[in-house]
Each structure stands twice: as structure tokens, then as C-alpha cells.
């Protein structure tokens, strides 16, 4: 049986007090309750403080470029659908540099779990606005305040009918671990946007700020009802809903490729008999 210890204990490069620590804990718990062994899992990340998380897990890791975790993960999943592929990275990585891949992953409904550490800031590069930063936030890069409206990943995902859309908070670790387990169990693309205080650079959306606003969706909330999900997705400000906001059962991307129905591409033989026939059409 897999235990938390199997996923190791590493020194991190994070600031003391950062929300990333709790997310890391919750991820481990999610993996363990999902009964996933380290070698069965592949973590893919981009670049940023959040993106270092997979290095603090004893598992398979591909740590790629800033913003490009989703395509790497998609390629790996298509090559070997037996892998449990989890993408973990920051808000800047996924909604900023990687915005186009975020849209594409939702459209594909490829079976990946996407965990976004959403601290509403670019942490690693020292505090510029991220796509989720609030309008008016003042940083050194935005001395007159952020001029763009914040990106609402939940709203966009629900509008696009992503098959699993959830929000967690690093300060509610049990709840988050539960969400992660559900997300990992979900077949298809699962987004978990995790609110995460950045103690070094985001002095607005602090632990207390989130704590005061976050509430978990009631049991009677029906995440399969798109209309109410869309409404819930727009909630932000005084009250911020946590939980599975929307889910549906779309066919996964991998299922659409007839060749993948025979198992992973890895190690599959090259059929020279077939190739010979193909070449005949050129004759």
C-alpha cells in the first residue's frame, strides 16, 4: 500500500509561510488516497515557484518551459495513456504564457489533472501582475495599477463545458485533498484552481483575505447543472465558492483515437507488411 512517505520529503526553495506547502501536502494526500504509486504517475510542470512542486515529490517528473506544461503532458499522455499525468504549475504559467494551451486542453478533454497554484501574482519573477491579479493592483511593473480585467479561469472553463472544474484553497487542506482525489479519479480534463497566498509579493490576496471569503459549496449544489455552475463561476469578491463547480461526462480525447484503443503506443511494433502495402499505392 502506498503511503505519504513514498512520495518523499524534500527541501524546498519556497518562502516560509507560502501557500505552496499546503498544496504540496494535499497533493501527496490526493495521490495516496487515489492509491497511485510513484512510478505510475508523471508530473509535468512549467516554470515558476509553483512549477517547482513536482521536484518535491518522489515520482516521474518532466519540468518543461514556462507556460508549456500542458502540451508536454498531452504528448506524454497520448504516447502512454496508462500513465496518470498530472500538470502542476502557476497561474502565470497556465493562464498567461500558456493561455492558448489551456483552451486547447479543455477542448480536447484529454485525461489530465491540472493543478494551478493561483497566487494571483508572478512569484518567481518577483511580483508582477499575473492574469488573475485584480484590477488596480499596484506592482513595480504596473505602477498605475493593473489595467486589465482579471482572468476568471473557472468561468472560461465552465463556458467551454470543461468536464471537471473545481476551486480549492491552500488554507483548507482537507477539502483540497478531497478535491484532488476526485479530480484524479475523473476521466477527462480536470481543472483545479487553487487559491494560494504568496506571502512575499501579494499583499492584497493574503491568507486572511481568502479565508474570510472562501466558502465550500453546499452538499445540495449540483455541479452537473451548467446554468447554476456558470452563475457560481462568476462569484468572486465577498464570497468565493470552493468545490467542484462543474462537471460533465464527455468522451475523453484518447478514446477518439482508434489506435489508442489497442493500448499505449510505446513499444508497439512497426508493421512492415502494412507499410509495404501502403507503399504500393505509390507504384
Amino acid at each position: 500500500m502506498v503511503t505519504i512517505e513514498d512520495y518523499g520529503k524534500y527541501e524546498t526553495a519556497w518562502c516560509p509561510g507560502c501557500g505552496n506547502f499546503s498544496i504540496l501536502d494535499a497533493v501527496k494526500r490526493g495521490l495516496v488516497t487515489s492509491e497511485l504509486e510513484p512510478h505510475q504517475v508523471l508530473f509535468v510542470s512549467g516554470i515558476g515557484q509553483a512549477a517547482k512542486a513536482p521536484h518535491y515529490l518522489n515520482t516521474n517528473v518532466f519540468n518543461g518551459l514556462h507556460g508549456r506544461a500542458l502540451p508536454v503532458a498531452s504528448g506524454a499522455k497520448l504516447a502512454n495513456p496508462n500513465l496518470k499525468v498530472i500538470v502542476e504549475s502557476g497561474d502565470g504559467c497556465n493562464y498567461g504564457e500558456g493561455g492558448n494551451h489551456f483552451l486547447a486542453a479543455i477542448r480536447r478533454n484529454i485525461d489530465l489533472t491540472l493543478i494551478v497554484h493561483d497566487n494571483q501574482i508572478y512569484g518567481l519573477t518577483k511580483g508582477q501582475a499575473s492574469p488573475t491579479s485584480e484590477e488596480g493592483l499596484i506592482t513595480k511593473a504596473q505602477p498605475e495599477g493593473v489595467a486589465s480585467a482579471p482572468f476568471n479561469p473557472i468561468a472560461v472553463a465552465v463556458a467551454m463545458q470543461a468536464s471537471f472544474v473545481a476551486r480549492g484553497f491552500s488554507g483548507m487542506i482537507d477539502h483540497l485533498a478531497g478535491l484532488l482525489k476526485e479530480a484524479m479519479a475523473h476521466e477527462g480534463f480536470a481543472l483545479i484552481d487553487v487559491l494560494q497566498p504568496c506571502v512575499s509579493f501579494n499583499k492584497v490576496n493574503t491568507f486572511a483575505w481568502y479565508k474570510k471569503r472562501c466558502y465550500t459549496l453546499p452538499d445540495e449544489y449540483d455541479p452537473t447543472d451548467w446554468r447554476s455552475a456558470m452563475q457560481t463561476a462568476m462569484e468572486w469578491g465577498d464570497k468565493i465558492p470552493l468545490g467542484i463547480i462543474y462537471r460533465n461526462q464527455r468522451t475523453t480525447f484518447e478514446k477518439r483515437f482508434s489506435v489508442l484503443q489497442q493500448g499505449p503506443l510505446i513499444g508497439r511494433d512497426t508493421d512492415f507488411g502494412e507499410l509495404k502495402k501502403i507503399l504500393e499505392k505509390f507504384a
Partner: protein
Amino acid sequence: MEKTDVTLLIGGEAGQGLVTLGQLLAKSLVHAGYSILVTQSYQSRIRGGHNTFAIRVSTEAVVAPRESVDLLIAMNAETVTLHKAEVADGGLIVADEAHGTETDGCLVVPYQQLGETRFANVVALGVVSVLLGLDQPLVARSLDDFFGKKDHEMAEKNRQILTTAFDWCDQQTVAFEKLPPVAKPIQRMVMNGNEAIAMGALSAGVKFCSFYPMTPATSIALNLAAQAGRMGLVVEQAEDEIAAINMAIGASFAGVPSIVPTSGGGFALMTEGVSLAGMSETPVLIVVAQRPGPATGLPTRTEQADLEFVLHSGHGEFPRAIFSPGTVEECFWLARKSLEVAAKFQGPVFLLTDQFLADSSRAVTPFDIDNLEPIDPGIETDASSLPYSRYAITPSGVSPRLLPGMTKHLVVAGGDEHPVDGHLTEDLSIREVMVEKRMRKEQGIIAEVVPPEAQGDERPDLLLVTWGSSKGSVLEAADQLRNETTRVGTLHFSQVWPLVPDHFLQRFQDAGKVVCVEGNAFGQLARLIRRETGFAVHSRVLRYDGLPITPEYIIRELGD
């Protein structure tokens, strides 16, 4: 003297079915045993404009296009106007009444009378077949192969029209000599550069292709997609080129040989990914099908101007290999070779082709599939020493590769500088060791370089040096120059990086005059040769107007 070498040029608007006509003719000619070489020229539009499909056909092997036209098949009036001047002495124009009756040496075809407008290309097929001396049953078979499976009624209709056209043309007296029959026709395929790359990659065991459509690279992916079900591979159109290269890296990391076809502008978006492949030591084959730039340039024309860009693409330093096939056959073999080198040395490898070669169908001797094997993917099934370290230091610089999820060992890889275990490091002594480990792989790559192919005199008065698709024209130009009693040698680089001076420098030094022939304005191979050897070529023949280099062009430029 019999005319054994004929160039025919079909011209018309996009949408008139002239590519179909050209392909059917090409097939029929090859079935009849002739050698052919196709040059396609088209505009960046779907209908209208002016496109051409030229076939040079001969009883002997054809290696290059020719500028003069013996048979001009005009599907519209514009074609006559634009190409009349190219028609050689003794040449013939085949046109509709409406298109060029006034011209001498014109065979006026009553298209309306022989078939409905949408079958004009089949009429032309019949007429031209008669002019060239092709057998009707043979041409009918090509036509059947093409339409037969799709729609029987259509096939029947086509056959009727073909017969009508044959009959009509048989009754004309035309001053155009038929091609002599080929004594012993050997069986050959009709294949273009992109098809050959796709087939070569399939034979090597490629299992993943991600791409974003871009002329002239798209058809590589389309050819793979058409066989994905049968050959067991995934072909995915990505949301952009950045996704394409990163997907391929992901698939390759997970364990399957991957290919990414693109062209200059799309490739530009991939350069960060190239650097990631270099750092993470992930094999990936990137095919760059060149077209004239900068920016969107001339999207449907040809050029050889991305050599330096590809060679230096990606920030930071890491080894790579760049292949540049000169023929359709080389497209096939070098697609295999490049996948092999990528797997063996675990990094990005490039295949540089261009629009001319991509679209140039030729008669190709069938590959000996029975004696081929897929390439060695270079993957171990267990760790030879523990703990398994993805970036173990080795004398060759190549570290044993396991796959994630395929053993109990964990595989950690990425784009940050790393110790052997693949995790993060800020230890600068590790940095030095890792740079040197990666660089050592270059020695292995060098050991496997395909040497440039030398032909002709060993100590020539004139040495023509070239790379990629200009090969054939250089060979033919050399042949012609030899007739004029110059001692001429040629050297063709089908691998442009790494360069191994031992392979060619002596030949340069032994030549009277070294001329580099390239389809670009900077003389990129010439510069690279000087950088690597100090040798400055004496002169350069460059072309950058969007057209392929021809033997005539070379000879004209040498004359200047």
C-alpha cells in the same frame, strides 16, 4: 535524333484540376518506364491565379528541372501568354481555341466538344498521352486507380472522355515527336519529397506526429495521418507550433519516436522547444520545409535560406544534427537516419527540405522494405546502476534512458540545469560537468555524419558545391559543363551539420575554382564552410526569387 528528354508544363488556374492531370500523367509515364521529375509552382490561394505543374520526362534518369518547355499545356489563355517564350524550338502548345489559336506551333483542342468543362483535365490527359506516345490502356489504368475506388459512375465517365480525347488526337497530324519507348521498363514508384519523408519516418517506427498546418510542410503530416490507423501512430494537429514541439517532446519523453513538420515561421515559434529538447535530452525530429521569407514571404515558393537559423536555433548551447536531402530517395533514407541520430544522441535533429523538393514527384525505385528494421529507440528496460539517474555522466555524454511508468524507477527530466538525478540545482560545478556531458555527444554525432557526396573529377578545374534540393541541378550543370571540356567535380552535402573538414577540405584545396550553389542570398553554406575550415569559396551562385535552381541558371550565372 530522337527526342529522349521532354519537359511538359501544364498551366492554368487553381481549381482547374491541373495537379490531378499532372499526377495522372506522371503515374502513366512512370508506369511506361520513363524517369520523371515534377516541379510545381502555385500561388497562395485556392482558386484562380496562375499555377503550373511541370514534368520533365526522359528515357534516362532525370535529376533536375529544366527551364525550356517542349510541350505547353495551357488550360487558360494566361498560360500561353506567360509561357510562350519558354517553349523550345520544335515545341508545341496545346490549347483550347479560346486560349491561343493564333500562335504557331499550336495544337488547338476543341475542349468543349470533347467533354464538359469540368473534365477538361481528362481531355488534356488523353491528348498529351497521345502526343507523348503513351498507351491508352496504361493511362486508363492510372485514371481508374485514381477515381475507381471512390465513384464508379465517375470512373466510367472519365474513361469515356479519355477515349474520346485519345481518338480525337490520334487523328491529328502534329509536328511533335513521340517519346521512344523504354526498352525494359523497371517498376518504379511516383513519390515526392514529403511523401518520402513520411514513409521513411514510418519505416523508422515513428509513432507520434504533432504539427500545425504550414505550407509546404503540411503534407508530411497529412501523409502520416492517412496511415495513422494502419501503422499505429497518433497524428495531432496542435493549437499552435509551440504546442506541436512541446507535445512531441512529451510523447518522446514518454517513449515514442516523434516528428514535427513545419516551415520557417512555424519553426521560429518552436525554437524555445528546440532548446528544451537539447537541455532535457529528449529526441525529436523537426522537419523544416523551407520557403522564401522573411515573415510570410512567398508561402508557396521555394528557398534554402533557413540553414543558419536552424543551426543556431534555440538559446544556449547543445549539439544537434541537420540533414538536407537532395533527392526523394534521400528524403526517405535521411528521415530514417535523422530519427536514429535523435534517438541515439537524445536531442533535437533536423531535416531541412524545401517547397521544390517537397512537391517534386519523381520516379523512385521501390525501397527494400523487407530488409528494413525500425530504428533503435535507445531505451533501456532496467537501470544498470542505482539509483537510476536520467542524466548519469558517461564518456559518450549519452545517459541510459528509461521511460516513466515502464519500470519501478523514476525518471526525472527537464529544462533547468540539473544534477544527474534531473532535479534542480544551483551548484555551479555541476553546471560545468553537465555542459561538458552534453557537448561530448557531439563527438558521437560527428562519428556518424553522412559525408558529402562527391562526383566527377577529383582534382577539377571547377568544383560545384551544394546542399539539399539543389543537388540534381548541380549534377546536371556539371555534366553539361563537362561537355564543354572543363574538368568539373561536384560535392553535395546531405548533412550540413556537423561538418567534418576531413570529409571535404582536401577536395576544396585540390580544385581550381570552388563555387557554392545555394538557394539563398547570403551564401549560408559557404559562410559555414569558411567558419569551420577557413576556406573561402571562390564564388557563389545564389538564387532567391522563389524558384528552384536549375542547371541553366547555374550555367548562366557561372558565365557572368
